[in-house]
């Protein structure tokens, strides 16, 4: 490789570092992403100038096909389907890494056949890439299927699952040993198949709501396979970029799990141990106070300060536009209204920000948990739209609750709380919310889109 190409690759690696740095700050995030894209493009153009590539035309066609599919897919996808899209992109990346490693294994096999001694470290890296790349591919596909409702999003557990998983894992190690001992193609292919099986078995027992964490984990896996691939190809930019993603992805997975008050091992293996990772959905029959849209509209009409707490149910009902309209009517009447955004409201981090931004809610109306928690005390009415766990005081009071210790929105300190939900069923964590039974709480039953529409009409008519 000529020195200029090495230097350009180093510059691209720096570009990826700056991209990650940018992506972790709200003001620099978009620029960061563009810097990353620029670095990626430059890095991919470089080999055409120094490497003596065959099949250039075919390569360019393949790139074009992939670019079109990727760009169109990314443009078409709805905001609410982002997680599964990211999962899919991650999966194909892992698949590509596994395929590249298989082709490298073929080279090594050819070299070994003519008596060349292949460095064991390369073979270890190759086996790792094949196995883990395949895990990432099939795991991401299952993830996609769960989120896209192509299969049940509940944890899928069958009796022999732990043994199947353990067996496949051991087999993977053994076959990797075979590859390292002597590079042979059949072993590589067996390894890929084992990886596919492992990926499926890993993701099946994870509940739909925990899937974002698993996507992040598989993302880190793919990063590591790319790094290992970079080592095999002796290419710095692949190694550095892959390692960056592997390290930051692993760390990010931990951060995400912590924000939800869960541990990663609990998410992955909780269902196997019997502790379900998805809410049980038991409905209570204790008495509550429910009201109709007109009553709630009057409540809102008299309030001076209202805070809206959006949650998963808002996304399910696709009611964000109706909600925005309701808030605009209230604002026009002179009421002070803010949205309180809990970091893990919904089913992916930042879900509510994305959803409400898409519905054209002005950014200044979105308040983060820590900034708004002090204000509930002076709030007349809190409108909880399809949220539950993120306002459940059990997180503070009940040490046995699965969400115990998770920071929550202090909705219970407001003068009045109105819940918009369909039934008495609990949320993701599967535990009852005492707040529903408080005397200051009113329930407005029904699908959020529906009830918000009625509420909007009633408020306009006030």
């Amino acid at each position, binding site marked *: 490789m000529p020195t200029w190409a090495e230097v350009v690759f180093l510059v691209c690696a720096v570009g990826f570092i700056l991209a990650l740095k940018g*992506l972790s700050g709200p003001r620099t995030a978009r620029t960061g992403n563009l810097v990353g894209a620029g670095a990626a493009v430059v890095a991919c153009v470089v080999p055409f100038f120094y490497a003596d590539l065959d099949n250039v035309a075919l390569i360019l066609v393949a790139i074009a096909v992939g670019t079109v599919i990727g760009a169109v897919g990314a443009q078409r996808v709805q905001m609410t389907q982002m997680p599964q899209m990211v999962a899919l992109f991650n999966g194909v990346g892992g698949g590509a890494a596994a395929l590249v490693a298989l082709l490298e294994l073929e080279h090594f096999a050819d070299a070994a056949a003519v008596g060349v001694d292949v460095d064991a470290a390369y073979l270890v890296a190759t086996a790792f890439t094949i196995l883990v790349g395949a895990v990432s591919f099939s795991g991401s596909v299952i993830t996609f299927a769960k989120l896209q409702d192509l299969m049940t999003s509940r944890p899928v557990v069958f009796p022999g699952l732990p043994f199947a998983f353990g067996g496949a894992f051991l087999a993977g190690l053994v076959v990797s040993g075979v590859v390292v001992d002597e590079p042979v193609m059949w072993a590589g292919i067996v390894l890929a198949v084992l990886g596919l099986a492992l990926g499926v078995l890993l993701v099946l027992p994870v509940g739909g709501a925990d899937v974002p964490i698993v996507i992040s984990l598989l993302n880190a896996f793919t990063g590591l396979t790319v790094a290992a691939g970079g080592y095999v190809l002796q290419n710095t930019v692949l190694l550095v970029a892959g390692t960056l993603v592997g390290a930051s992805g692993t760390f990010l997975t931990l951060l995400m799990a912590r924000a939800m008050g869960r541990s990663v091992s609990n998410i992955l293996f909780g269902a196997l141990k019997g502790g379900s990772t998805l809410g049980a959905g038991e409905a209570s029959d204790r008495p509550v106070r429910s009201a109709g849209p007109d009553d709630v509209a009057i409540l809102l009409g008299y309030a001076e300060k209202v805070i809206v707490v959006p949650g998963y149910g808002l996304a399910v009902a696709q009611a964000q536009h109706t909600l925005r309209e309701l808030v605009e009517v209230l604002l026009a009447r002179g009421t002070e209204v803010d949205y309180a955004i809990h970091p893990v409201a919904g089913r992916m*981090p930042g879900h509510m920000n994305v959803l409400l931004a898409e519905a054209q809610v*002005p950014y200044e109306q979105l308040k983060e948990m820590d900034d708004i928690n002090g204000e509930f005390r002076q709030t007349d009415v809190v409108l909880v739209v399809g949220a539950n766990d993120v306002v459940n005081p059990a997180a503070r009071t009940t040490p046995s609750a699965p969400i115990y210790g998770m920071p929550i929105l202090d909705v219970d300190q407001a003068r009045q709380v109105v819940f918009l939900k369909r039934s008495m069923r609990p949320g993701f964590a599967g535990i009852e919310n005492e707040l529903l039974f408080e005397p200051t709480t009113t329930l407005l039953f029904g699908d959020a889109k529906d009830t918000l529409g009625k509420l909007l009409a009633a408020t306009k008519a006030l």
Partner: protein
Amino acid sequence: MSNDVTWLTYFVLSVFVGIEVIAKVSSTLHTPLMSGANAIHGIILLGAILVAGDADGFALVVALVAIVLAAINMVGGFVVTDRMLQMFTRKPAAKRPVEGGGA
């Protein structure tokens, strides 16, 4: 110095950079950051190009499939991240011709 230690050094230093550089991220940005990192590992496209440039027969077909997949990862990843981030940074455009005022 020996080649493998060189690569180990790159790896170790990159691990620190990767972790430290995102250590301060706010939870609001978790999803776009994940998505952006996802796009970055699409750089495996470079690896796929390199092997495709040196393959023929069935291996070439496999390499071309790898290129397609990697390009989907890379291009789709950056585009989808940009779309997400557009939602976060629409502050100036937030002035819409509706009656709602700032809170």
